């Protein structure tokens, strides 16, 4: 009986994995195809070399990384400070602030995108600017900050506040106590908040699409305009490279986690 269910679940798992990876495998396969259609015309690496010579794509990749980097740093600072401040509010006020915090998380991306576009176009008329790099950055910070608050908050509520006072008694000034005690205690939450922000910013298309104006390009927007034209095997090459990068990063993170778990186990 046990063995039988084991086989069924193995087959089921294999089918789901096929479902998840077949589309990606097909893209990678066609990235080596020496022809523009789905008919196999022989092996080539020309789409990869064309990809690297495409200055638009290289620029877009740069913009994506810069936005993700800046947005996650700003969001982390703003969100960590916010979490510390909010934890000192009590009762109804705290509830209201936390609920407002959740608005960007629960409202649909497209609504957030058009509402920010409305704000930026109105402000643009008043202050005479056009949407572009800065508005995209602001929009990305907007949807990242709540995730930082959400990750840091539980750490603060669990923290023993007397450690801070102890640090002061032992001769730290306020800044030292803040840095050495509080930031140290909150660090895991801060780091996961920053990582989530970074990945969300990398992946975003919808909000960038509505707040970018006419000139700003990032990788998602570039992919959008490429896929809209449908036939462009360079996209397959790009997918293959991104997939490779993701696998390397994920394996690296997983190995690090396991290493840390082992260290932790040794200590206890």
């Amino acid at each position, binding site marked *: 009986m046990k063995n039988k269910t084991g086989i069924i679940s193995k087959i089921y798992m294999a089918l789901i994995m096929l479902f998840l990876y077949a589309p990606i495998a*097909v893209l990678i396969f066609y990235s080596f195809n020496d022809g523009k259609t789905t008919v196999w015309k022989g092996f080539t690496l020309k789409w990869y070399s064309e990809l690297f010579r495409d200055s638009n794509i290289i620029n877009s990749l740069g913009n994506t990384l810069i936005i993700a980097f800046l947005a996650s740093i700003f969001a982390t600072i703003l969100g960590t400070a916010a979490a510390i*401040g909010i934890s000192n509010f009590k009762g109804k006020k705290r509830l209201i602030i936390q609920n407002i915090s959740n608005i960007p998380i629960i409202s649909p991306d497209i609504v957030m995108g058009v509402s920010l576009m409305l704000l930026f176009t109105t402000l643009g008329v008043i202050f005479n600017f056009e949407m572009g790099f800065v508005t995209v950055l602001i929009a990305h910070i907007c949807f990242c900050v709540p995730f930082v608050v959400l990750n840091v908050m539980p750490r603060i509520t669990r923290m023993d506040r007397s450690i801070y006072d102890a640090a002061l008694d032992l001769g730290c000034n306020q800044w030292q106590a803040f840095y050495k005690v509080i930031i140290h205690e909150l660090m895991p939450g801060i780091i996961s908040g920053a990582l989530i922000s970074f990945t969300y910013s990398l992946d975003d298309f919808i909000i960038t699409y509505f707040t970018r104006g006419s000139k700003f390009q990032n990788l998602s927007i570039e992919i959008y305009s490429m*896929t809209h034209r449908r036939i462009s095997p360079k996209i397959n090459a790009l997918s293959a490279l991104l997939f490779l990068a993701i696998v390397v990063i994920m394996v690296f993170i997983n190995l690090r986690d396991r290493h840390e778990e082992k260290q932790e186990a040794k200590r206890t």
Partner: protein
Amino acid sequence: MKSRKPSVPYIIWMLVFTLIPIVMIGFTAFTDKQGNFTLENFSKAFFYTDVFMKSLWIALLSTAVCLLLAYPLAYMITRMKESTQNTVIMLFMIPMWMNFLLRIYAWVTLLQDNGPIDMALSILGIHGTYIGNTFAVTLGMVYEYLPFMVLPIYTVMSKIDNGLIEAAQDLGSNSFNVFRKVIAPLSVPGIISGITMVFVPSASTFLVAQYLGGTDDIMIGDIIDKIFWTDQNTGSAISLILMIFIFVFLILMNFFGDEEAIA
């Protein structure tokens, strides 16, 4: 440390970049181009009732398929060795990190006429079109959001105390009854957050239907995208309806979740 001041920049930020934009959507929805009060935008929004219904239908269908696929899957994962569990979860996350558009584009490649699936089935003597219909759109949605269903259910299931399962077995339950009386009721919170995490984005997303659907597979997100650039007032009215709808849905799900927690 006891000061509230550090949250001031954040509160101002949220006011300017979250609350005010939403208020502006509300304001624009109820005014015409000159800024006078009107309800005309909502009567224009009514033209798109069909699209609303279609979006809801596709979102419901995708959520149901995700739940059917994910629930046994989450259960199977919890039965595995712990180190295997982490690897399987990682395998689920990897495709999710691929750019949203590339994942849809991958399905366009797979399903298109003369694409790999069409060619394979032609060899077997089956001819047909696999793209440009509601089926393809649902498939794309399930592909996009399946991990959002698996992860919360898995998280809740893996936290179920093994002692409870053993107790049920000791008291004479067979494995079906253990599942029905212990595991299923305790996994409800995971199901509810899974449904929320799949339904909300699939009801409001855009482009999936444009890439994979036919001419009558237009979703509400596509309509907002199409008309917002030319008619912000009607666009705002539709966005407002979508937002209110999503909020009502979330409140309902929350309500069910709380009921379960008490029971």
